[in-house]
């Protein structure tokens, strides 16, 4: 500011002039300020769209997978040479050679070991597992012919999805010219195509991208969340009811409240350390188990549920309590018969939001060993397992290209679950919440 403008204006006219002179500048500042706000919001919203767009565009291709149609002859010479249909023998028989034989039939001109090996690698190693499953389920298939779809190798899958360039020099891509020729033939015979990827939803983890699925992680997440819900909902609501309806105002209550507020802001990885030192090392619970994961997540979600439930209880007007107490109900009867049912929509909303947070949590679960490579789908809360976000983390680390789309696919599954949960919370809130 220069010296003239800092001088105190002498007359009303002078003041008006000064204000008028500054108006344009001030309005410009106003517009600028508003533009900053719009820019900030636009950036935020654009990022949301960008993030979801990237993940979906990368992951949507995981929904489709290259499948190969083979005419397989269940040769008794190969899978049941003893001819006694012993289930143990059928389990360990050489189904790989059945797949290979059918590929040789289709390309009878291919000869020599290296060329054959290339031909065989078009089918996934999982193809033989499918045959084994069919034969052990129905031994009568032995000696018959069957046409069925099996998984193709992940490099073939990438090629069909256009992620392996045809024009790249042969030594720089993972498919040889001969293989590409065979793929073209198979495609023209309609024996190789992209179909809906059932393996992705029915398999557990695998080192081969084409066989890896999210089923194990989804079941693991479900079991973990089940434990979390069973523990954190009653304890959380109980604590909220106590603090809102029963607690006397004293040191102890203050201590509990300060604690809950602080726990809500403690980094989740610290809870993981607690789980490791306490549940695994001290109490000797098994590593990688949904039970331990559920216990840790219970402690993490408790503050969320308690705080939300308290807000819901607080929103119930005192007149309800007074009326119930007035006609002779005890405090506990008042709470159970009147206050809690009225607060239930809010309490449930809080619980769902807490569960959604628990579903997305991964850092503390790394601490308690839920990062192990586990192929089997868990069947109980003590089985080793992993959860969806940790599966995302594990796959994102793997070098194969097929895992990039699998990672995004798993993220899509995770986000879908979260969207459903949050939508349920929104519906619950808007539909059942009473405004007093």
């Amino acid at each position, binding site marked *: 500011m220069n010296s003239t403008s800092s001088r105190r204006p002498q007359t009303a006219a002078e003041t008006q002039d000064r204000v008028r002179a500054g108006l344009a500048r001030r309005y410009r500042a106003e517009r600028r300020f508003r533009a900053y706000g719009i820019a900030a919001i636009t950036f935020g919203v654009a990022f949301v769209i960008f993030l979801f767009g990237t993940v979906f565009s990368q992951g949507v291709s995981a929904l489709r997978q290259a499948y190969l149609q083979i005419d397989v002859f269940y040769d008794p010479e190969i899978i049941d040479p003893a001819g006694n249909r012993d289930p143990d023998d059928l389990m360990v028989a050489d189904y790989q050679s059945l797949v290979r034989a059918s590929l040789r039939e289709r390309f009878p001109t291919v000869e020599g070991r290296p060329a054959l090996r290339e031909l065989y690698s078009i089918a996934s190693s999982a193809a033989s597992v499918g045959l084994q499953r069919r034969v052990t389920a129905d031994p009568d298939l032995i000696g018959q012919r069957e046409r069925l779809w099996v998984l193709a190798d992940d490099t073939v899958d990438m090629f069909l999805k256009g992620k392996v360039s045809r024009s790249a020099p042969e030594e720089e891509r993972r498919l040889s010219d001969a293989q590409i020729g065979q793929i073209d033939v198979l495609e023209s015979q309609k024996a190789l195509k992209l179909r809906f990827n059932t393996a992705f939803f029915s398999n557990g983890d695998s080192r081969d991208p084409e066989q890896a699925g999210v089923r194990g992680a989804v079941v693991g997440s479900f079991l973990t969340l089940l434990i979390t819900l069973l523990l954190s909902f*009653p304890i959380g609501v109980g604590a909220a009811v106590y603090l809102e309806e029963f*607690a006397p105002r004293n040191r102890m209550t203050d201590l509990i409240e300060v604690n809950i507020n602080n726990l809500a802001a403690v980094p989740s990885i610290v809870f993981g350390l607690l789980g490791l030192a306490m549940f695994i090392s001290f109490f000797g619970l098994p590593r990688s188990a949904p039970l331990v994961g559920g216990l840790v997540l219970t402690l993490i979600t408790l503050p969320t549920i308690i705080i939300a439930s308290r807000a819901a209880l607080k929103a119930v007007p005192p007149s309800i309590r007074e009326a119930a107490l007035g006609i002779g109900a005890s405090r506990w009867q008042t709470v159970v018969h009147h206050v809690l049912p009225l607060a239930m929509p809010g309490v449930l909303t809080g619980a769902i939001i807490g569960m959604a947070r628990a579903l997305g949590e991964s850092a503390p679960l790394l601490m308690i060993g839920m990062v192990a490579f586990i192929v089997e789908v868990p069947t109980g809360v003590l089985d080793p397992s992993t959860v969806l976000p940790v599966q995302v983390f594990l796959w994102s680390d793997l070098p194969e290209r097929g895992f990039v789309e699998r990672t995004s696919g798993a993220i899509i599954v995770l986000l879908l679950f979260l969207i459903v949960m949050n939508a349920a919370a929104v519906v619950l809130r808007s539909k059942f919440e009473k405004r007093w």
Partner: protein
Amino acid sequence: MSPSIILVLIVALAVLAFQIGKARSIAVAGGPRNTRSLHSLPGHYGLLTAFWCVLPALAVFGVWVVFQDSVLTRLVLSNMPAEQQALPADQLGLLLNDLRNVVAGNIPASMVSDPVRQAAGDFLRLQRVAHLSLAGVALGIGVLALLWARRRIRPELRARNEYERMVEWALFACSAVAVLTTLGIVLSIVFEAGRFFGTVPFTDFLFGTNWSPQTAIRADQVGSSGAFGAVPLFVGTLLISAVAMVVAVPLGLFSAIYLAEYASPRLRRIVKPLLEVLAGVPTVVYGFFAVTTVGPMLRTVGEALGLSVAGESALAAGLVMGIMIIPFVSSLADDMITAVPQSLRDGAYALGATRSETVRQVVLRAALPGIVGGVLLAVSRAIGETMIVVMAAGLAANLTLNPLEAVTTVTVQIVTLLVGDQEFDSPKTLAAFALGLMLFLVTLLLNVIALYVVRKYREQYE
């Protein structure tokens, strides 16, 4: 008989106790028509009986389950040949590990030595006996308590009051879980960190500038000095958090101002949930995004500008973390701004201030303490954030303030030190707990200050 079946039986006993208590109260009253002579409703007598019956049974069950394994292991161990018992502590630990794995069915019995296989058989046999006796003891105590509670039922017994007092204690126990959790965190972390500081001096940890936690397994190994100077980690954490704050604070603050002061209710209704979506996305998704999209993007931009950007630069992790924190800052700031009384704004408008002048010179100044509190909470969240940095930041400790280089953070080191590691004795694993302790203390301090500031601010306008 597995513990879960025993638990189901206890619950069944509770249902039975309820029925017995209810029937008994009706009987002592002299029939269903005369229940008015009872102090409480028959159902209350039933609930009270069920409570009295289940509590002791559950207590026995809990104590038994917690201590069973260690007692059984000791028993089995004392039955093993003297040769095994005389093993040094670390080998004994391995042996017990094998034993546990065989018992849990993780490894087939044919893969371990004979004594261990025998011990595993012993263990399983003892476990069966233990479970059976647990079922007997817990249910027996439950039945005894049930009979005792049934005998107490008289018309004068104030069943409702007694039962409600028990409920109140149960509710108190629920809320005490929060305190127990904090206690558990402090005890477990402080204990393990204490063991760490027994081998590495506290000052070396806090002020040392060299972090390479790989301790030598053999004495002649190269490059495994086992240095635990945590300064590079602290600096890395602060660097990434600072980048995150540079992104989150202006963006969050401006969106909050716009939504609170300028936006129409309709826009607010649409945009606010959209921004909050950012807070609901799992952090592992942000991490993946940082690695696959933001990192490469920054590299290309850096190359175009002639800068060398590391693949796992602090900038990429910080940027993405900042975006994650935007809704956190904006919703807190929004709360604080809307809490400023309208009269302050009206006063400013009356003096001729424009909207932005009112916001900048009146509203923000009035809301400043609250906003500072919110930013402190956001900082504490950035410091404790794990997945983004685990995926997008580096592993090697690098003492630098250049956000284009790769740095590592406290949380990254905790994860890398603990994931996959089984033993609890090496300073390497214990170092993770020392880092955890620092993390806990710093975030706790930030939270306490922030909550205090926010509460003081709220009281000011209430």
